[in-house]
């Protein structure tokens, strides 16, 4: 959806810029500085409000999380701002507050001026700011919306120019320009969400309108919409001949249009009315306004929810009253979602993000790495060894719990997106490592597990941002061809298990090559024989799942695209893994390679697997367009260079250890 929205985004950028600088926007300029810390219960309740985004119903916390992560690079914002007020309501002291996503979103909605001052936008390259006429502090820094606002128009123009360049040919600066522009658009969509509830509407000066709304202006859109029936009747009955009333109604409708224009990309909180043709798409504020003015259905639930937001808005200076209004709104929105069976996974998703299993898992593996390093220094320490096992086990369990949670929330098999593949492949590699360690008890597989855990979860954390940037979510909706749990479960997971085997075999092979190179226990032939046997077993594991997954993929392709095999890059990537593992095993069987050769082939297998997993996605050709990736080429290239260097070192070590030709003694 993100991509689709981009095209519209440039139009929205202009509209939003116009909106923010318009008299209507200027009317918001009243000071709205928060004078209290958000109570925990308020944040927790707000986090579980249901909202439709990216084709699915998710907790508001997830929407806040992906937005904050995209802008800020982290899910937590260190918000430094003068917000303590004296008795006159003036700020008196600077404070830094650590805001979680939902607390940040509360500020965006209810204290937009404050949120605009947060330095929440990470600018990776100061040259972007220079090119839009803004001053920069250092090469990479964080800026507030207000700091960037003067360059918004120029940024939008730069982003449009960058967007017109073919994806694969964009420079890093162009990619970051597009991203910053998108981040600002997303932020605008959040801070203008409650503007229709804040605005005053011109219902005075017209007899017909005053008959409905009473004297004076009407504050808040709910007050207008609650009289939807009368407004519709008046709109239908009035004619240009009634010049004063007609002009007044036209003016009011224009104000409503303006409110709709400003919020048409805001979060979709409202379930559609029972009479709506499209029952699946939730409504945004602009939909509620439009439908109330034009459709004869009953919109009392939707308008009631709008009124709920207005009541919260009216109580932003009183955290207790605010909490009370939030509870009322929460009950209403949750009740409507639950009645449609669309609330069942909301709390699980919030729990998943609160548990944050992947970050905690990474911490476990980092600690395991430290204990492993300690156990190398002091091999006799049982405590360090058991600590390494225990921490790795806890990390693995956290990882698996996270994968299961994501699977249950989406009602899908564990691997759907590229981000899922990282988590799943790491988990499978870890399980294979534990099993191998149980079989061999040489501590080698366990060391591999720690490295895989650290590497896999670090990579997942880095890639999460890219996944969100490309699809707006790490649990995004799937394209039509992937909408089959059977094939996702059978083909994608088995292919990923093959990848896991290939990569873990490469990890074990490194132990063999580097151990020999640096003379680590080289006299312990049994140790190296065990590593060789382990690597062989894991390559067999890789072959088993790669062959099954590849053929199964062909059968899926036969059902969806009309051919078993099409030589598409992704298919070829899978075939390369099968061919590599078959070649390695046949070379071993024929005696053409021995321990060292097998290790070299296994390291090469890591290159093959990474090329299949990531490399072919960079080519941007073929039918697997849902897997196209950008921005990982450099990392992949560095990995390949390192692996080729390892292969080179293995060759060097081999020739170094060849027996020297004996020179006959001249005597």
């Amino acid at each position, binding site marked *: 959806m993100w991509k689709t929205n981009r095209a519209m985004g440039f139009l929205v950028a202009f509209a939003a810029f116009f909106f923010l600088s318009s008299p209507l926007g200027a009317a918001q300029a009243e000071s709205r500085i928060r004078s209290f810390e958000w109570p925990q219960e308020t944040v927790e309740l707000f986090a579980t409000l249901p909202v439709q985004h990216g*084709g699915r119903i998710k907790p508001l916390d997830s929407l806040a999380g992906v937005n904050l992560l995209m802008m800020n690079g982290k899910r937590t914002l260190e918000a430094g701002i003068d917000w303590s007020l004296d008795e006159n309501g003036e700020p008196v002291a600077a404070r830094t507050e650590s805001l979680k996503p939902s607390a940040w979103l509360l500020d965006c909605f209810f204290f937009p001026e404050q949120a605009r001052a947060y330095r929440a936008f990470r600018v990776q390259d100061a040259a972007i700011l220079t090119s839009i006429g803004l001053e920069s502090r250092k090469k990479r820094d964080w800026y507030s919306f207000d700091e960037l606002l003067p360059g918004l128009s120029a940024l939008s123009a730069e982003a449009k120019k960058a967007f017109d360049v073919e994806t694969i040919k964009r420079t890093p600066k162009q990619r970051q320009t597009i991203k910053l522009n998108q981040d600002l658009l997303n932020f605008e969509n959040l801070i203008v969400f409650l503007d229709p509830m804040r605005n005053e509407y011109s219902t005075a000066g017209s007899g017909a309108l005053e008959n409905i709304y009473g004297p004076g202006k009407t504050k808040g859109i709910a007050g207008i919409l609650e009289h939807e029936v009368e407004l519709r009747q008046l709109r239908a009955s009035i004619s240009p001949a009634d010049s004063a009333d007609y002009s007044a109604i036209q003016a009011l409708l224009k104000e409503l249009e303006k409110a709709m224009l400003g919020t048409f990309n805001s979060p979709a909180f409202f379930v559609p009315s029972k009479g709506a043709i499209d029952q699946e798409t939730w409504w945004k504020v602009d939909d509620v306004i439009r439908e109330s003015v034009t459709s004869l259905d009953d919109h009392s639930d939707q308008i009631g929810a709008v009124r709920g937001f207005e009541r919260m808005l009216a109580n932003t200076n009183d955290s207790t009253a605010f909490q009370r209004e939030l509870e009322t709104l929460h009950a209403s929105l949750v009740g409507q979602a639950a009645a449609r069976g669309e609330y069942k996974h909301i709390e699980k998703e919030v729990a998943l993000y609160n548990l944050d299993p992947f970050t905690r898992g990474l911490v476990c593996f980092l600690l395991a790495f430290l204990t492993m390093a300690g156990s190398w220094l002091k091999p006799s320490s049982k405590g360090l*060894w058991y600590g390494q096992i225990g921490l790795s086990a806890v990390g693995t369990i956290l990882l698996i719990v996270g994968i299961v949670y994501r699977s249950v929330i989406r009602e899908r098999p564990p691997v759907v997106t590229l981000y899922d593949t990282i988590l799943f492949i790491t988990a499978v590699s870890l399980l294979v490592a534990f099993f191998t360690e149980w079989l061999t008890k040489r501590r080698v597989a366990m060391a591999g597990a720690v490295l895989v855990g650290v590497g896999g979860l670090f990579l997942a954390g880095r890639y999460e941002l890219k996944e969100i940037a490309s699809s707006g979510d790490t649990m995004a909706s799937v394209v039509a061809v992937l909408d089959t749990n059977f094939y996702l479960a059978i083909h994608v997971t088995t292919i990923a298990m093959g990848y896991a085997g290939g990569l873990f075999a490469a990890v074990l092979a490194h132990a063999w090559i580097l151990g020999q190179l640096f003379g680590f226990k080289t006299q312990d032939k*049994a140790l190296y024989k065990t590593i060789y046997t382990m690597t062989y077993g894991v390559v067999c594991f890789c072959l088993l799942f790669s062959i099954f997954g590849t053929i199964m993929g062909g059968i899926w392709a036969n059902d969806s695209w009309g*051919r*078993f095999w099409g030589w598409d*890059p992704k298919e070829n990537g899978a075939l390369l893994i099968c061919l590599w593992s078959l070649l390695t095993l046949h070379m071993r069987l024929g005696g053409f390679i021995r321990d060292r050769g097998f290790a070299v082939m296994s390291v090469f297998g890591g290159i093959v697997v990474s090329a299949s997993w990531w490399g072919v996605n960079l080519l941007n050709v073929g039918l697997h367009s849902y897997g196209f990736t950008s921005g990982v080429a450099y990392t992949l290239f560095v990995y390949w260079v390192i692996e080729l260097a390892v292969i080179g070192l293995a060759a060097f070590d081999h020739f170094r250890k060849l027996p020297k030709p004996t020179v006959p003694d001249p005597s």
Partner: protein
Amino acid sequence: MAKKTGNPIVDILSSLQLACVMLSLLFILTLLGTLYQVEHGLYEAKEVFFSSWFIWKFGIPIFPSGLTCMTILTANMLTGGLIRLKISKRNLGVVITHIGIALMLGSGMVKVLTADEGNLALLEGERSNFFSSLYKWEVAITEVGGDGAGLVIQDKYLSDLDGDSARTVKSDVLPFDVTLSGFVKNSRIQPKGPMWEASGPVVDGFGIFEMPPMKESEQNASGMHVEIAGQQGILWGFQRAPWTVKVDGRTFLVDMRHERYEMPFSIELIKFMKEEHPGMSMAKAYRSDVYKIDESGQEKIRIQMNEPLRSENLVLFQSSFGTQASGTYSVFSVVDNVSDQWPLYSLWVVTAGMLLTFVQRLVKVIISPSRRRTSVKEMTS
């Protein structure tokens, strides 16, 4: 291990060395064929690296291509994995796996040699009993007001007529011979001017302007020259109307179009539906409701992503859709392939064989008395 047969050809053909060489060559071909697609598209890559016997350069074969390697590998598996290998309980899984892989490669070979592939685009309410190739062309000649009989010259008799090559086709159903020449894979027909050289003769001031092949081969518009009863004409794949030629007072239509394949039934599109994810423009599902009509009557069937229509070796898949002035049309990929389900059978055979082998080896490792259960104490001492 394999035993020697005494026949040197069989010994070489069944050797592990040959298996390794073929696997290496296939690895290189797959890698190069994948990279080649970036600049030249999938169809060209398939033709050069996988569906041919050799890769040609300067008119000579410089490297064995996919068909050669897969054929030799299949022969190697059959001789080495099945004939020479001593079948025992220990290697039963290996034998079964080889059978499965051979079946899969065999199914690929059968498809390459016998299958027809193409597309069928239907507007709602429209019916057809044929589908058209995306890449291959044919020349069809029919008489205006005739009984419908005519001559169809297939792609294999056209696409080799590059350069100055020409072919004269004689037919009992036509009162003249047809001479075809100068086939160009991708072209544009335009008035001959001084700034460009036409491919072949200029006809009525128009010539064939040869263009580089498109990356997506289905976008190529082929063109060629035709001569009938002394009259010269230009045929073009995307021409809006056939070339008309009069011979002995009779009028004939000469049409260059994508090769057509008749189906044993007709398909009528009742309705095409596209479903999107809520609030997004991303497609969630495409589906078409169709009637399958044959002599026994008509049957209403739904064709959608991952659920094709299979009937009489033909498979129809929901491929894409589009809109035009006259309405929405649905596009089906159609494949006529006798080996359609063989890969599925091979999957089960291969899986059974590999599982058997893997479990056998694993159990052996686990229960092996030689497995050193080195205790932590031993390790740390």
